[in-house]
C-alpha cells in the first residue's frame, strides 16, 4: 500500500543528533486547559512542543504544572524566551528554562518591536553566540532574511526559524522567495515559525522544501483545536509529499490534457 507513512518512511529531519519524523511543531500557549493542550499535541502528531518560562503566581498556587501533562521523555520540550526584548534578558531566561526543564534546547526569541513582535536580529544573534558557547541547542526565531540566517548558522545554531508572517497574525506566508533563499543559504533545518493561520496555509510553505512548521495561535484559536490539529498533521504531510513529488511548471497559457488527435466529428 502506498500510504503516506510508507512514502515518508525514510523522511526525517535532524536537530542536534535527534531525528524527527513529524514536521509539525506546536506551541502550548493560549489553550483553554492543559488537558486540551495534551489532546491537541496527541492529535497533531507533533514530536516537539514549545513552552514558556514565567514567574510563579505567588497569590494563586493552585495552578497545575504543564509538565505534568506533557511527558518530556516522549516529546522534545522546547523552552522559549518569549517576551524578552534584549539578548541579555533572553540569556537569563534560557538559563532559568534549562534549570526548570533539565533541557538545554532553547527557542531563542528576542523581540524588537511590541506592535509587530518582529525579532531584533542583532540582539538575537548576540544571545545565540553566547548560548551556543554555553552548550545550548539554539533555535532562533528570525526574520525571513537569508543573509542573517547564514550568520545564525555560522554562530552554531542548530536550526533557524524564520517567520511566515508576524506572530499571532494568522496571515499565512508573506514572502515565499525569502524562505526559498534561506533554505538555499543554510544547511541546518529551516523551521518556519509564526504567521500560520490555518491548515490550508501550511502546504504552500512545505512545498518550498523547508524542514518544518511551528504553529500555536492557529491551533489555540481554532473553534475546534483538535480538528485543526488533525488537519495540520495532514497538511504538513501533504505539503512535504508534494515537495518531494515535484510540481509541474507554471505556464501562462492553457495546455490541453486530452489528446488533440481523434476528436469525434472533427474534419
Amino acid at each position: 500500500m502506498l500510504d503516506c507513512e510508507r512514502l515518508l518512511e525514510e523522511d526525517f529531519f535532524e536537530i542536534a543528533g535527534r531525528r524527527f519524523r513529524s514536521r509539525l511543531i506546536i506551541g502550548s500557549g493560549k489553550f483553554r486547559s492543559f488537558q486540551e493542550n495534551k489532546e491537541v499535541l496527541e492529535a497533531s502528531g507533533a514530536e516537539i512542543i514549545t513552552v514558556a518560562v514565567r514567574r510563579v503566581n505567588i497569590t494563586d498556587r493552585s495552578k497545575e504544572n504543564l509538565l505534568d501533562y506533557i511527558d518530556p521523555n516522549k516529546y522534545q520540550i522546547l523552552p522559549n524566551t518569549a517576551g524578552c526584548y534584549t539578548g541579555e534578558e533572553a540569556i537569563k531566561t534560557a538559563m532559568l528554562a534549562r534549570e526548570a526543564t533539565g533541557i538545554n534546547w532553547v527557542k531563542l526569541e528576542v523581540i524588537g518591536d511590541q506592535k509587530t513582535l518582529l525579532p531584533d536580529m542583532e540582539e538575537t544573534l548576540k544571545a545565540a553566540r553566547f548560548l551556543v558557547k554555553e552548550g545550548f541547542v539554539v533555535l532562533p526565531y528570525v526574520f525571513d532574511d537569508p543573509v542573517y540566517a547564514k550568520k545564525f548558522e555560522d554562530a552554531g545554531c542548530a536550526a533557524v526559524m524564520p517567520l511566515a508572517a508576524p506572530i499571532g497574525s494568522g496571515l499565512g506566508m508573506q514572502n515565499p522567495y525569502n524562505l526559498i533563499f534561506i533554505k538555499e543559504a543554510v544547511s541546518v533545518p529551516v523551521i518556519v515559525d509564526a504567521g500560520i493561520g490555518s491548515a490550508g496555509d501550511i502546504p504552500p510553505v512545505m512545498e518550498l522544501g523547508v524542514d518544518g512548521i511551528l504553529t500555536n495561535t492557529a491551533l489555540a484559536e481554532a473553534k475546534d483545536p483538535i480538528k485543526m490539529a488533525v488537519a495540520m498533521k495532514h497538511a504538513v504531510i501533504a505539503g512535504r509529499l508534494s515537495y518531494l513529488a515535484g510540481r509541474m511548471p507554471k505556464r501562462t497559457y492553457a495546455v490541453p490534457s486530452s489528446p488533440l488527435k481523434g476528436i469525434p466529428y472533427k474534419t
Partner: protein
Amino acid sequence: MKVVVNGEELKLQEGATLEQLLKIMNIPVKPLGLAVAVNEEVIPKSKYSECKLKEGDKVEIVNIVGGG
C-alpha cells in the same frame, strides 16, 4: 530582612535560606518545572538548602507555562 521575590518585597527572618523561602511560599520543589535565580544567578535545586539569602536579594521564582 527584606528581599524582593518576583518583583515584590517580602520580609524574611535574618539568614533564611532559599529552601525556607520556598516553604513559606508553599512552593513545592519538584525536579521538573521550577527554577530559581538569586540576583540573576540560577541556583541548582541541590543548593536550595545552603543558599542563604541576604538583605535586598532579588529572587526570581519561575515555572513552565504554555507558550509558543
